[in-house]
């Protein structure tokens, strides 16, 4: 009976105190799981910093960052990272040449032209493309794209930057398209209608109104895509080669930062030697570059979203 309970005081009894402790415990465990992400970041930074520190006691930072010869495993050893950076840059530029125009055009089609039905059909295709493992793209580059390029340019080497660039471009394409699509769709409908009301055609509206309004979001998408391309590993390991060199010829074999790290970890370089520690120095550089690009892009995106909310 409800009347019976009216006599009971409201103060927490022993039972509720126990359940409150249990609640606090659960809350704490959940918090730990969330906090794990911070620990992960700290561990990455700590490990890279520590190992890179031992490396830079042997090799001067300036020699590392400005040297143009990368031969840590061969005599005479040289620790200039620029050839790896150049190789990575070549892949990023090549991939961007594909992913940026194709991704943006697809996004424009999806956001401005396509019907809801077409969107529903195309989006899953992009998702599937995005879900294909990178080792598959590496295989594709090696056994399909390279022979294709070689058929056109006979001087093409078996391992070359061009085919790796192409597949990396295809790989980051879905991400570019979907981020650009988000940015374009964030532009309010009123802006488009205003332009249409002035007699603009769809092409003019898209190019002169929507795209400029979405520009910072679109640019941020490009930065995120480039950062992804920099970190891409297996496709370039399989297809781009293992020849660190400063070249801009896409038909030659090169080596990226990521591919170098894989090469060392597959080899039998003794742990603890300065040769081995090169992978941490290179990884630190890789991490610093991608992280700063991501942070900048996320900042820009956050500000972009604020404008249209």
């Amino acid at each position: 009976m409800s009347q019976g309970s009216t006599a009971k005081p409201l103060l927490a009894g022993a039972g509720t105190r126990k359940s409150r402790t249990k609640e606090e415990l659960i809350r704490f465990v959940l918090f730990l799981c969330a906090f794990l992400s911070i620990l992960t970041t700290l561990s990455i930074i700590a490990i890279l910093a520590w190992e890179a520190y031992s490396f830079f006691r042997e090799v001067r930072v300036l020699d590392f960052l400005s040297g143009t010869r990368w031969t840590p495993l061969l005599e005479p050893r040289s620790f200039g990272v620029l050839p790896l950076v150049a190789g990575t840059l070549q892949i990023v530029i090549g991939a961007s040449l594909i992913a940026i125009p194709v991704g943006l055009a697809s996004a424009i089609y999806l956001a401005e032209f396509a019907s809801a039905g077409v969107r529903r059909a195309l989006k899953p295709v992009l998702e599937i493309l995005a879900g294909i493992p990178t080792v598959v793209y590496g295989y594709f580059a090696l056994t399909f794209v390279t022979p294709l390029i070689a058929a056109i340019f006979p001087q093409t080497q078996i391992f070359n930057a061009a085919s790796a660039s192409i597949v990396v471009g295809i790989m980051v394409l879905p991400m570019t398209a979907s981020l650009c699509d988000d940015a374009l769709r964030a532009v309010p409908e009123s802006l488009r209608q205003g332009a249409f009301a002035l007699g603009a055609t769809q092409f003019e509206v898209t190019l002169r109104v929507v795209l400029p309004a979405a520009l910072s979001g679109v640019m941020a998408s490009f930065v995120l895509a480039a950062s992804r391309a920099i970190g891409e590993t297996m496709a370039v390991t399989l297809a781009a080669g293992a020849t660190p060199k400063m070249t801009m010829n896409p038909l030659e074999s090169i080596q990226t930062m990521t591919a170098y790290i894989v090469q060392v970890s597959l080899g039998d370089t003794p742990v603890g030697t300065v040769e081995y520690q090169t992978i941490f120095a290179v990884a630190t550089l890789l991490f610093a570059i991608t992280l700063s690009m991501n942070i900048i892009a996320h900042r820009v995106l956050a500000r972009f979203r604020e404008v249209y909310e």
Partner: protein
Amino acid sequence: MSSDRLRRRHAVTRGFRLLCAAVAWAGIVILAVLLFHVTREGIRWLDLQFLTEFPSRFPEQAGIKSALWGTVWLITLTAGISIPVGVAAAIYLEEYSPRNRLSQLIEVNIGNLAGVPSIVYGILGLVLFVRFLALGRSVLAGSLTMTLLILPVIIIAAREALRAVPDSIRHAAFALGATRWQAVRSQVLPVALPGILTGVILALSRAIGETAPLVMIGALTYVAFVPEGPMDAFTALPIQIFNWASRPQENFHQLAAAGIMVLLVTLLLMNATAVWIRQRAERTGR
């Protein structure tokens, strides 16, 4: 003349539209070419023996038994660790966390972690799990590495699913004298479950295809046994594919293609499951 100009402007729009459409549909063409190429190369090798034999120096005798089992072990362990931890983190951030600096920091941090190259996670796993915790090149070390790699993906997806649960359900539960955990566990979580599952499946399918972190922690490239416990050495499907693809002989390339077919079918099945769960939830839910 002005009508001429207008006609030209419309023609430009039509041309532009056609161009964008062609480019967008090129995605399908690429996908088709890739699938066709892989199938044409690999189909010859894809038979029962391919699934039940260990890798070998002789292409005719080579199979993916150890790789397949390694992947099963790896993904099972990864799922077992990453799902509870990831969902718990999402619950904390979505249902518990006060909106303060720390939770904001955690949020931004998770976004950034999602963008860290997978090879960096490999280095983390190598130093932290293989060496520091002395787990060696074991399935467990691999799973822990994969867990850290896909946690951001799971957390982000699970948070979205939790956010989609209407507040009225939480309020109903609280008004009945439920504690926060009781409300979350019995009322909010079941409603969010399909969304969470979808995200988890997509995250796990990423883990199945990841290669670089496994190479880093030293998953072996030649393994002629099936792991029997979490501390055993292992290889995995993408590692085996990588190994075959990086050999010069044509036959091994074709074996790689056959391995890719198995990998892609697995991923396709997982994707289909995710889509099925999503649609079923949409049909039965409000």
